[in-house]
C-alpha cells in the first residue's frame, strides 16, 4: 500500500513539475489520436451519413459489418498495418513503419468504422424526421447526407468523442506499428504498459492520471457544448 502511496506522490510531483519527458509523451499521444480522429471523421462521418440516407441491395449487410468492425481488436489492426508497412509488405517502400504516421494510420483504420457506424445511427434517426421535407425541397441524397451531418453536428460531437476515447486508450495497434521507441513513438498507453512491467510505477501512474484527466475534461467539454447548443438551437 505504501508503495502505491509513494508512487502516487511521485506521480503527482511529475505532473505538477511538468516533467519534459512526460509532456513529450502526452503531446505525442494527443497528436496521434487527434490526427486519427480527424482522418477517421473525414472518412467515417460522410460514409455513415450516406449509408443512412441511401438505399441499395446489401445496405443492411454493410451496416451489420460496420457494427461488427466497432469491436475490431486493436492488435489485429496493428498486425495488418504492420504487415502492410513492413519492408517486405506492399507499402514497405514508404518507410514509415515505427513512425507516428504509421500510428495515425493504424488508429484511423481502428476508429473509422466506429465513427461510420455511430454516425449512421444518428443520421438515420434524423433522416426519419427530415426525409419528407428534404425530398419535398428537391434535395439530392448526397445533399441530404451533408445537410444532416451539419444539422446534427452537436450530436456528432459525442461520436467524435467516442472515437477519440478509443484511439487515446488503445495500446495494441500503436505498440505494434510504433514500436514504442523512446522519444519517437512512445505514447501514454505504451509507456504505461512498459513502465508497469518494468516496475517504474510513478511514471506509469502519472501518465494514467493525465490520461484520465484528458478523457474527463474532453467528455465534460463535449457535454457542455452539446447541452448549450441544444438549449440554443433546439
Amino acid at each position, binding site marked *: 500500500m505504501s508503495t502505491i502511496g509513494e508512487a502516487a506522490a511521485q506521480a503527482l510531483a511529475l505532473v505538477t513539475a511538468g516533467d519534459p519527458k512526460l509532456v513529450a509523451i502526452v503531446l505525442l499521444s494527443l497528436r496521434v489520436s487527434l490526427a486519427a480522429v480527424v482522418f477517421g471523421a473525414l472518412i467515417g462521418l460522410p460514409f455513415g451519413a450516406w449509408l443512412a440516407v441511401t438505399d441499395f441491395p446489401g445496405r443492411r449487410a454493410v451496416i451489420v459489418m460496420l457494427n461488427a468492425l466497432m469491436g475490431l481488436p486493436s492488435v489485429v489492426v496493428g498486425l495488418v498495418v504492420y504487415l502492410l508497412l513492413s519492408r517486405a509488405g506492399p507499402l514497405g517502400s514508404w518507410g514509415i513503419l515505427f513512425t507516428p504516421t504509421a500510428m495515425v494510420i493504424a488508429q484511423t483504420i481502428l476508429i473509422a468504422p466506429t465513427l461510420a457506424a455511430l454516425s449512421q445511427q444518428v443520421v438515420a434517426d434524423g433522416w426519419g*424526421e*427530415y426525409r*419528407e421535407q428534404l425530398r419535398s*425541397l428537391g434535395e439530392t441524397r448526397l445533399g441530404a447526407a451533408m445537410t444532416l451531418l451539419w444539422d446534427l453536428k452537436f450530436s456528432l460531437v459525442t461520436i467524435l468523442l467516442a472515437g477519440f476515447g478509443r484511439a487515446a486508450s488503445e495500446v495494441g495497434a500503436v505498440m505494434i506499428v510504433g514500436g514504442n521507441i523512446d522519444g519517437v513513438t512512445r505514447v501514454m498507453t505504451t509507456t504505461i504498459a512498459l513502465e508497469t512491467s518494468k516496475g517504474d510505477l510513478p511514471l506509469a501512474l502519472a501518465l494514467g492520471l493525465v490520461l484520465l484527466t484528458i478523457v474527463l475534461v474532453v467528455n465534460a467539454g463535449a457535454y457542455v457544448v452539446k447541452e448549450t447548443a441544444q438549449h440554443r438551437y*433546439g
Partner: protein
Amino acid sequence: MRAPTSLLPLRLEAVVFETAGRRIIRGISTTFRRGARTVILGPNGAGKSVLLRLCHGLLTPTSGAVTWNAPELPGAPRRQAMVFQRPVLLRRSALDNIRYALKVSGIRGREHEDRAFEALCKVGLEGHADRPARVMSGGEQQRLAMARVWALRPEILFLDEPTASLDPVATHEIERVILALHEAGTKIVMVTHNLGQARRLADEILFLYHGRLLERQPAHQFLKQPASSEAARFLEGELPW
C-alpha cells in the same frame, strides 16, 4: 429566356396505393387545374394525406399514373411545394432555413437574399430573422414553413393539415398566407379536418372515403347539400374525423 411551361394541370388516372398489404387509395382519377382552391375532406383513414404525397411525388403509386402537364426535370428547381402538419425546420436561424430552401432550388445571389427576407416579412417574422428556428413556438415555426414556401413561389402547394396543432390566432395567420399565395397565383390543394377552415378557404371540395373519391363539388354546394350519404354523415359528425 422562355418561361417554363406550366406544371398544371395535374392528372391522376386510376391511382392505387398499397402498403403492407393494405390498399390505402383505391383507384382515384381526377384533375387539378390552376385557379380554384381545393380542399380535401374525409374521415380518418380515408387516404387524404397519402393522396397528397402521391401527388407531390413523395410516394409512388402501386398502379395508375400521376402526370403533370410539363413534368419537372430531374435536378431542376422544384415548382411544387408541400407544408406538413408538423413543420420540419433545420437547426439554424429562421432566415437561414429559407436561404437553404432557395439554395436547394438553385436560386442564388442577390435575388436569393431579397427573396428570403421578403418571405419573412410576408409572414410577419422579419423581427425573428436571426432566431434559431427550432426554439420558435409551434405557430411561428409553421409561419416560417409558409415563408419558405413563399420564397420558393411554387406553382402548386400541397398542405397537409397545416393548422392541426395551432391555436386560433396562429391558424388565422396561416390562412392569411395561404390566401396571399393563392392571390399570387399558386394553386392550393389542402387537407384539413377543420370544417370552418374548409368553409373559409375552399372553392371546391374533394371528399374521400375509404380510399375512394366519392365527391368533387363546389364548396358551398358540398357543405350545404352533399351528394353522398357518407359525406352527409361526415358533415353531421357521425364519422370519425
